[in-house]
């Protein structure tokens, strides 16, 4: 494996982890808005209990992605920074409002309703803008005049390809988060909340799959190079669809643990995360060696080899030190029944 491949794999790993964590984070904000006016169910509380301790850690990943991009591929930074000025700024503004209000709503119940609406709505808008970075790297929306690159926003927002991606981002956000919250409420023995989130996951799942098919259809005409590449990785795409069906099945099977219980949500979550892993692996492999088609490749944008080596060492040392911290965090908030079942915020 070349240095460039190692670097892009680390970057892709960060993006994948962030994508999964963020869709759950944003989706939980949305669900807590939807079920806010149904106090008899605990669906909102479950969503909030998941959301409160995780958003800061999730937020660190977005900075980690930007830093990994700049430090591994400084040559791509120049062009990406230039063309992403507008969409990047919009994402930053939305993220800022959202995070601030998540914290505020915890200490100021007087404003809670407004705050829940803000975090709920931004929870859908942010994924839509974030995913737009992908079609932008496909190349056809970037125009270079006198060696200055511009993003053609008009072309971007009139392209069906872009809208297929947006639909995919929103449905995936809702699908993944409802599935995770189903598992989370199942773990906390909240039968009613579990039933609600399980139903939501079953309704939205097919739409998420449908929008990913729409991406492929629009890609065929708008980014043929990438489409051909992805088709060459068809076993990964097939595995992805198979995992989706397996997850659906898991939600219908009788529960192992509980009598009269329905579904194995933990299995479904694992299958769906693997599904997205397979699909994004095929996408990423087909995208190589281009970072931004056709101008920037992973080789042309790569950092100085000495810097890469120094960075690589800090990655190993840094995550070795952090790992116990992550485990401790996971056990406190995801596994501890005292926390899951706690009625207070």
């Amino acid at each position, binding site marked *: 494996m070349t240095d460039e491949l190692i670097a892009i794999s680390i970057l892709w790993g960060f993006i994948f982890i962030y994508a999964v964590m963020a869709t759950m984070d944003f989706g939980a904000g949305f669900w807590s808005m939807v079920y806010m006016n149904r106090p008899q169910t605990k669906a909102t509380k479950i969503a909030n209990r998941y959301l409160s301790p995780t958003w800061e850690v999730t937020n660190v990943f977005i900075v980690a992605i930007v830093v990994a991009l700049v430090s591994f591929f400084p040559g791509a930074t120049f062009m990406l920074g230039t063309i992403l000025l507008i969409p990047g700024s919009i994402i930053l503004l939305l993220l800022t409002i959202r995070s601030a209000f998540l914290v505020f709503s915890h200490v100021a119940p007087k404003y809670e309703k407004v705050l829940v609406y803000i975090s709920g709505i931004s929870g859908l808008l942010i994924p839509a803008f974030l995913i737009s970075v992908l079609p932008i790297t496909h190349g056809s929306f970037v125009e270079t005049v006198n060696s200055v690159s511009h993003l053609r926003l008009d072309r971007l927002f009139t392209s069906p390809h872009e809208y297929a991606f947006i639909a995919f981002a929103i449905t995936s956000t809702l699908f993944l988060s409802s599935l995770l919250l189903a598992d989370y409420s199942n773990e906390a023995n909240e039968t009613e909340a579990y039933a609600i989130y399980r139903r939501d996951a079953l309704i939205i799942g097919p739409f998420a799959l449908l929008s990913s098919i729409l991406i492929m259809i629009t890609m065929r005409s708008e980014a043929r190079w990438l489409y051909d590449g992805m088709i060459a990785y068809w076993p990964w795409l097939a595995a992805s669809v198979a995992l989706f069906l397996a997850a659906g099945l898991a939600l219908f099977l009788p529960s192992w643990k509980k009598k009269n219980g329905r579904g194995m949500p933990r299995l479904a979550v694992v299958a769906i995360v693997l599904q997205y892993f397979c699909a994004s692996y095929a996408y990423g492999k087909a995208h190589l060696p281009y970072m931004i088609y056709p101008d920037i490749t992973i080789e042309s944008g790569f950092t100085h080899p000495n810097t890469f080596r120094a960075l690589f060492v800090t990655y190993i040392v840094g995550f070795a030190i952090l790992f116990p911290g992550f485990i401790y965090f996971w056990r406190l*908030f995801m596994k501890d029944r005292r926390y899951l079942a706690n009625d207070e915020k």
Partner: protein
Amino acid sequence: MDHVLTARTLFGTTMAFHIIFATLGVGIPLMILLAELLYQKTKDNDYALMANRWTKALAILLGVAIPSGTIAGVQLSLLWPGFMEVIGKVMALPFQIEIYAFFVEALFLSIYVYAANRISPTMRIVSLAFVAIGAAASAILITNVHAFEGTPTGFRIENGQIVDVDPWKAFFNPSFAVTATHVVLSAYMTGAFTIASIAAYKMLKNKHNERIQLFHKKALMLGLTVGGVFSLLTAINGHESAQLLHEYQPEKLAAAEGLFETQSHAPLVIGGFTDRETQTVKWGIEIPWLLSFLAGNRFDTVVVGLNDFPEEWWPPLFVHTLFNAMVGIGMFLLLLSIVGFIWHRVKKQHIFPNWFMWTIVTAGPLSLLGIEFGWIFACTGRQPWVIYRMMTTAEAVTQSTNLGTLFLLFTSIYVFLLVAVVLVLRSYFRRHPIEQHLSTHM
């Protein structure tokens, strides 16, 4: 406004906003940790209560510090892609290591805030210590990038290509230690004085309740003591920073002091405004020989003046005023804590007179102002360079235009958040007045 100036204004506004919350985010955890430790030592419940209340405030402040820091980090790439291209190749280490510090801070802050009632007292102190360490480490590492901009090492530019890269040499550039120390010390000073300000204000507002007075007096003395110690350390370290400028960025020191002619036995000019036409500092107080002594510990030290440099390399001359304001505030706060200490310890007086209390109330806002002046001085004084003698700010700026709209958007968000954070803090502490807790503990 021209393009570079608009970009600098946008980024400068982001930093000016972020630095308020970032500084408090470094300074307040130390105060919480000290209060927790005092509680373990004295078993005085008031200190536990302080730690608890300050943590609530910290969580709210970090709700703005974290996203505004995210903006600052991403805006660097969006506004200064040329700069970040060099940073990515040469100076990526501090950014990367900062991510780990950031993770430590975020993980343990969540644990301390949301799991406080489920973990042991030892784990609470350990979590808090990790929050404080993570915050300080983030500040140190980010300041390192700023230090590198002033004293770049570890690479050369040959025919527009970056060669001979040594990332660790860049990391340990000559001004790293002194500059990072300055930032951390002044953040601790600011956190402590902010606490002292609030305590003094509350004492003035609750004259007739002795129990409340007593509670806030403890916080006040803790704030004044810690603030005093760190303002002294900041001053000593500030002196080193100035000597560093003398050695590595002489034109920045010359502009800070308004010195035009290279000379030995150079005078120190306090106050006044630098005038470009007459090459003098108008209305300043001149102390003979002092600048030479401060720059090199000897009166015959030759201090280089601005006229030895081409005029297009001169930093804006108003940095003299900013520099003076920063040093003046630092000196004033140091004096304030010495007076307070003597009053409390030597004269054994437990009640300060009103005018002195009101002076303490200004200490927190003044130290924040000092931080702002210091940063504007440090970054404006480096102009026209973004990386000293290697890359100008104009070479680094984005090619995208229309920054004006973005400036308006971001500025309105900052104003909005500033108002919101004040409202939320007030609303929280109104609903949880100190009386409630004190009565249950008495």
